[in-house]
């Protein structure tokens, strides 16, 4: 049982590398191998989280049996335990969701196998990114995430390759900046283990190099999480990516670097460092600009995916705002927002992909009366959008609530005003979608998945289940937020980030 941290990664890894071989032998089973291993890894991650919550102790796993700092270790505490469950959960359901898009085709055996392999690697990279306790190992996983991201964006819609190339250029700069930051830290301390770095950094008096490293980390993680002035790659990438993989890319891929940033600024750099205050202010300014910019820009577009992509820039701003507040409520809000926004955005992109799958809908003016034809998708869309606006009892409200509490505790009432303004702006753009949905005229659309043939009014069951689950999770997270905060986050955030 003590192998769980690495088994969570090894199961899907075996699935991903053997998927092409299995598909060659039997086209249907390659896909099943990936979906099966991802669900296995989800089950293991839940067991792991339960164990951590019970014992209250972080789990350490030494790769190759080498003790840190000489070898690589995985460290799973309460916070990243939750995030691993989140990634595995959404990864497993996204792989299930993709199967109608990538039906096994005996003439093109590799097409579905390659897609599943890349998607599985994206999940592996994100899992590794959140579990590792080694700064260089984090870079390696960052590369895996980025590479699979480029692939999934490039095989998307017609403009996909251009969006992927743009992301490739920007993403490489981001990864280089992170690596440079790690290089500075290594030159100052001589170690790569995160826990060890934190101890060593307390001793050194060369503050210039720490400031340089912090600046590199902000740019590196900022590019990866699409924080405001570094967000250029994100809207085209999220709009043109492979529709079935888009939920993973938009929902989770930009959140895990945000968690990495939290880990660096609260676990490794001291938050009492003289430079830290400036750094947090810079992140705060970036976050506020991002929140307002994303919300305003989302008003401009009629393309469903573009609206969602720009709203993501705003939502990532909320997480950065929580980081910049740096107090207990701010960090709880940030972690909670990582969770709730992951489910909201993933769910909304599920609905977007479902609309594309059944009717080929890309623009909001084609949405008229669509809820009559696709009742489940329509309901999920409304619930998830209301959560994005931040109405109780959905999850989006509570994470914003904690962020507002954090801002009030710090006396930064400006941030509270920004939160309210951006919520109103997001209400405007989501109500524009609702208007089209409920009051628009019904369009004659070609049905790619006719009810007469398949005996089902909606999209296939493999797509409905993830959509429904995302909507249900948003409600559950909203209703159960006090449980999560009191039983898991309150203890672990204090211990991990502020201890």
């Amino acid at each position, binding site marked *: 049982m003590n*192998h769980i941290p*690495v088994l969570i990664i*090894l199961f899907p*890894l*075996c699935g*991903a*590398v*053997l*998927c*092409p*071989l299995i598909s*060659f032998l039997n086209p249907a089973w390659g896909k099943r191998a990936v979906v099966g291993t991802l669900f296995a890894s989800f089950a293991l991650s839940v067991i792991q989280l339960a164990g951590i919550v019970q014992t209250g102790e972080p789990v350490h*796993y*030494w*790769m*190759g*049996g*080498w003790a840190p*700092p*000489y*070898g*690589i270790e995985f460290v799973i505490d309460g916070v990243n335990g939750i995030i691993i469950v989140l990634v595995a959960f959404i990864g497993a359901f996204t792989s299930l969701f993709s199967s109608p898009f990538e039906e096994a085709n005996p003439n*093109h*055996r*590799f*097409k579905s196998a*390659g*897609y599943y*392999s*890349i998607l599985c*690697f994206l999940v*592996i990279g994100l899992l*590794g990114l959140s579990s590792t306790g080694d700064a*260089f*190992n984090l870079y*390696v*996983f960052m*590369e*895996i995430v980025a*590479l*699979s991201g*480029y*692939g999934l964006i*490039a*095989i998307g819609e017609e403009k996909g*390759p251009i969006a992927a190339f743009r992301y490739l250029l920007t993403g490489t700069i981001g990864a280089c900046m992170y690596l440079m930051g790690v290089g*500075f830290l*290594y*030159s*100052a*301390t*001589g*170690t790569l283990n995160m826990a060890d770095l934190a101890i*060593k950094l307390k001793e*050194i008096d*060369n503050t*210039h*190099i720490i400031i*340089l490293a912090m600046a590199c980390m902000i740019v590196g993680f900022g590019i990866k999480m699409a924080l405001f002035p570094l967000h250029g790659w994100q809207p085209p990438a999220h709009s043109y990516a492979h529709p079935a993989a888009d939920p993973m890319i938009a929902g989770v891929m930009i959140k895990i670097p945000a968690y990495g940033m939290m880990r660096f600024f609260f676990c490794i750099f001291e938050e009492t460092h003289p430079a830290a205050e400036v750094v947090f202010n810079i992140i705060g300014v970036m976050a506020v600009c991002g929140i307002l910019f994303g919300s305003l820009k989302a008003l401009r577009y009629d393309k469903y995916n573009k609206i969602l992509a720009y709203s993501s820039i705003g939502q990532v701003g909320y997480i950065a705002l929580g980081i910049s507040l740096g107090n207990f409520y701010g960090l709880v809000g940030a972690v909670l927002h990582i969770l709730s926004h992951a489910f909201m955005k993933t769910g909304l992109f599920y609905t977007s992909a479902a609309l594309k799958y059944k009717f080929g809908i890309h623009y909001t003016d084609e949405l008229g009366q669509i809820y009559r034809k696709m009742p489940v998708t329509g309901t999920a869309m409304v619930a998830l959008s209301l959560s994005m606006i931040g109405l109780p009892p959905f999850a989006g409200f509570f994470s914003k609530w904690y962020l507002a509490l954090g801002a009030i505790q710090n006396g930064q009432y400006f941030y509270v005003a920004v939160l309210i303004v951006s919520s109103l702006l997001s209400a405007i753009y989501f109500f524009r979608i609702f208007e089209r949905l409920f009051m628009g005229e019904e369009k004659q659309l070609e049905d790619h998945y006719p009810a007469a043939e398949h005996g089902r009014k909606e999209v296939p069951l493999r797509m409905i289940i993830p959509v429904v689950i995302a909507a249900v999770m948003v409600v559950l997270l909203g209703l159960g937020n006090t449980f999560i905060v009191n039983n898991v986050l309150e203890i672990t955030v204090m211990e991990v980030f502020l201890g």
Partner: protein
Amino acid sequence: MDKVKITGVIVIIAGVILAGFILGDFLPTVGDATSSANSYLSPYYIEHALHDTEAPNLVTAVLADYRGFDTLFETCVMFLAGVTALMVLLSKRKIVKGQRNPSDTNGISFSGTVLDTAFRVLIPVILIYAFYVLAHGEISLGGGFQAGALLAIAYMIDRLIPSFQNRLGFFTEETAAMTAGVGVFIYIFTGILPMFNGGNFLEYGKLPFEFAVEAAVMLHPVGIFLIELGVTVCVMATIINILEVVLERTKFDD
């Protein structure tokens, strides 16, 4: 706005940053034994690597043993690159078979007496050298990545020179991607084996081959060789995969 001005600004910014690095004295001098980068982990590796891993070469000891988990994912990056290249170009039209050999259609070819004779001799030498690099991996610098590249070069020569008629040609783009996956799996499997024997992932000292060696530390070279083998297969297949993907969709007459 003219490009000259923008370029000038960029050059000035880069110059200021560079000057800052040189004057600011942020980074330790190369080879400074007292700097913190060289006085914490490095002495440990220098003193213990041979004793811990039986690998005479420190680079190999760190790369394949202490930080073998990183190398696993570097190998995955190779596999992923091949699969992604294949997936991105899969939608492009394939050149009809029979036309794909450039010498058949338009007379432009890489063949010639010199090429034929020279490379006929070279291929076996390259292959022998590749296996030498692979088998010698944990003793000298090098190992899996280089051996894989050499094997792929031998295959490439055979594939590109028409008069060789691609005799080694058992790879298509898809089988090459599969083989790359199998290569990574060899690596993973080497790591998983110790887990059945009470060790951690990639703990070569706990590989279940105790009967063959006198001391547990002697299992480290076995483990390193096995993972290098996986890396070799993966790298070779990935290079061939990308080559095949491009060759199948490119005409040489442009």
